Structure formats: structure tokens, C-alpha cells
């Protein structure tokens, strides 16, 4: 739910990183926090278990600068990937202006990717949104692993429309900022075109 504060001259948008457990959602956010411009990003909040699995959400506010005199702020959230936390995933998704699905490229995680995609579409529908008409980016993470499924095959199985697809190795930062730029662009275009 975009929030425009005219008094503060700010545009605030919410972006959610979604995906199965251990696919790299938190890695994406952490990389943005660690390597982004310090002046333009805030504190990283991580609500996690003792074993660093996301328990509720990660949160990172980033600011990209001004456009037409309005500061553009993006609130990045990740959801917990484990199915056990499905209720929390649904809560965090509410009000999202854009979503990134982080897919785990490993062959043995294909079922988890598909389950997540299905859950994403269903949860968005419950919130009155439609994945096919929403700002959405597909990130294929862990491209460096030996069991990674070829990208064309992953795209065939996971792509739902003409969404941008970004290949990534989030642990090394590859594709992380490309993904962020892609989803932000889609969110801003969607807002402009309303």
C-alpha cells in the first residue's frame, strides 16, 4: 500500500521478498544492507530463530533519492520461508506494492519453489491482489551450485507472465541490486500509470 506523505514529501512503497526456506531472501536483504550506500539505507531488522532462520520478517528501509521533489523510500521485507510459518507469510505480504520471488535453482528444491509460487498467488488473492497484474520479479538464485537447473527450464516452470527474470548468486551479491532495481522500476511505473 503506497503511502505518499505530502508534508514530508515522501513516497513510501513496500516490497516483499518471497520464496521457500533457505532460498536466499535474507541473503538478498543483508547484501543490500551491507553494500548499499550507508546514507540511503536504514537499520536492518531481523526477527529470526536461534539458528538464523527467519521467524517473522526481515525489514530494511532504503531510499533511492528524489524524483520530482519527492523522496522515494522502499520498505523491503522478507517472509519466513518455511511452510510452518505460512500464517506469518500471509501477514507480511499484506499491503505489498511489489513482490520478488526468490527461487532456489537447485533441482531438489523445485517442489518447494512451485509450492511457494502457488502460495504467493493464493495469499495475494486473499488480500485482493492478482499476481498477474502486479509488479513482480522472478529471481533465480544459487546459479553457482552444481545441481542448479538450467535457467530456461526454471523459467519455463516458474515464470507466470512476462516478469523480469534475474539470475543471481545472492551470497556473492550477483543479481541482488539488479533484482532490486527491476522491482522498484515496476512499482514506480505501476504507480505512475494509475
Amino acid at each position, binding site marked *: *500500500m*503506497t*503511502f*505518499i*506523505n*505530502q*508534508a*514530508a514529501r515522501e*513516497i*513510501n512503497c*513496500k516490497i516483499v521478498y518471497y520464496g521457500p526456506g533457505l532460498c536466499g531472501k535474507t541473503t538478498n536483504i543483508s547484501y543490500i544492507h551491507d553494500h548499499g550506500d550507508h546514507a540511503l539505507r*536504514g*537499520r536492518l*531488522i531481523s*526477527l529470526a530463530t536461534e539458528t538464523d532462520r527467519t521467524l*517473522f*520478517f526481515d*525489514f530494511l*528501509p532504503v531510499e*533511492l*533519492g528524489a*524524483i*520530482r*521533489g*519527492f523522496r*522515494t523510500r522502499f*520498505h523491503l*521485507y522478507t517472509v519466513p520461508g518455511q511452510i510452518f510459518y505460512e*500464517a*506469518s507469510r500471509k*501477514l*507480511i505480504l*499484506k*499491503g*505489498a*506494492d*511489489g*513482490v520478488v520471488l526468490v527461487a532456489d535453482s537447485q533441482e531438489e528444491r523445485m517442489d518447494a519453489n512451485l509450492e511457494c509460487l502457488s502460495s504467493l498467488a493464493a495469499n*495475494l488473492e486473499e488480500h*485482493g*491482489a*492478482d499476481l498477474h*497484474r*502486479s*509488479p*513482480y520479479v522472478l529471481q533465480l538464485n544459487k546459479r553457482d551450485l552444481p545441481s542448479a537447473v538450467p535457467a530456461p527450464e526454471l523459467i519455463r516452470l516458474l515464470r507466470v507472465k512476462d516478469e523480469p527474470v534475474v539470475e543471481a548468486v545472492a551470497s556473492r551479491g550477483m543479481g541482488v541490486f539488479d533484482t532490486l*532495481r527491476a522491482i*522498484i*522500476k515496476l512499482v*514506480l*511505473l*505501476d*504507480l*505512475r500509470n*494509475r
Partner: protein
Amino acid sequence: MSDRPIVLLREDHARIATILDRLLAETGAKVVFLANRNGEQIAAAGNLSGMDPASLGSLAAGNVAATRGLARLIGEQEFSVLFHEGTRDHLHISLVCEDAILLIQFDARTTLGLVRLRVRRVSPELEPVLEEIRARSVALEGALLRSTGALAGITDDEIDALLA
């Protein structure tokens, strides 16, 4: 994807800020913070130095969302008031008009009872302002966005420049 954008005009902010300033004085609290349900700050009063408003808002929103989930598990619609007691400072969190989260940080200079009393009295003042904001956003969406000047007529090149 999202609900319709919410636009907070300058006059809305001024009205809300006046209410929050008075609430701060009447409760003797340290901070009064009003956020939308996504945790984004609408207005605040008091000393927020040393406190990150983005973190405060997002955690409060997460807290409220999780608590709402708990309430529904036991057959309640929601818990409209949350109180967190610290050793020195405390937090009183309440929902206003379903769309907003009112968070009050206070210490031993005041009491929970007084905070709750003043919050109950101020909610009917905040509700019409928040209702107006929401109704305006539903009714005018695109025109409203254009009227604020935000993103009006921006080009693809401008967006690309922002992302460079």
C-alpha cells in the same frame, strides 16, 4: 497489487500533529507515534532522537499484525490495545480507525491509567481525520496522486536515472 495509495496532505499532517502534541502533553508521555498499518510514520510528537522511526513503525506494525492473528485464532476480531511493560519505559499500542497504530512510550512520570484514558478520549478526534484520508484515496486515486505532484508525468528516463 496493493490497496489504493494513501495520500497524506499537508493539512492532514497539521491536524494530526496538533492532536498528537496535545496528547503528549496530557499524558506526560515521552513519545507519541502514529503510523499506518504498514508501519510508515504518519506523525509523531516528543523526543524521537536516538530512535529509528522506520524500525519503530515496522516492528509495531508486525506486532499488531501478529497479535491480530492470535486474536482470530481464539475467536476475537483483534486485540485493540497492547501494553508492553519494561523496567523503566513502557509501550502502549492501540489501533485507531483500523488503519492506524498509535504508539505511546512513557515512563514512571505518568501512569498506564492516564495514558489509556487520554488515548480513549483522543481516538474520536483522530478517527474522522483518518477516515477522510482513506475516503479521499478511494474516491480520487489517480487524480489525487497527480494533485500531490508525486510521480506526475515522470518519464522512464527519470526512473532509470533514479535507479542508476
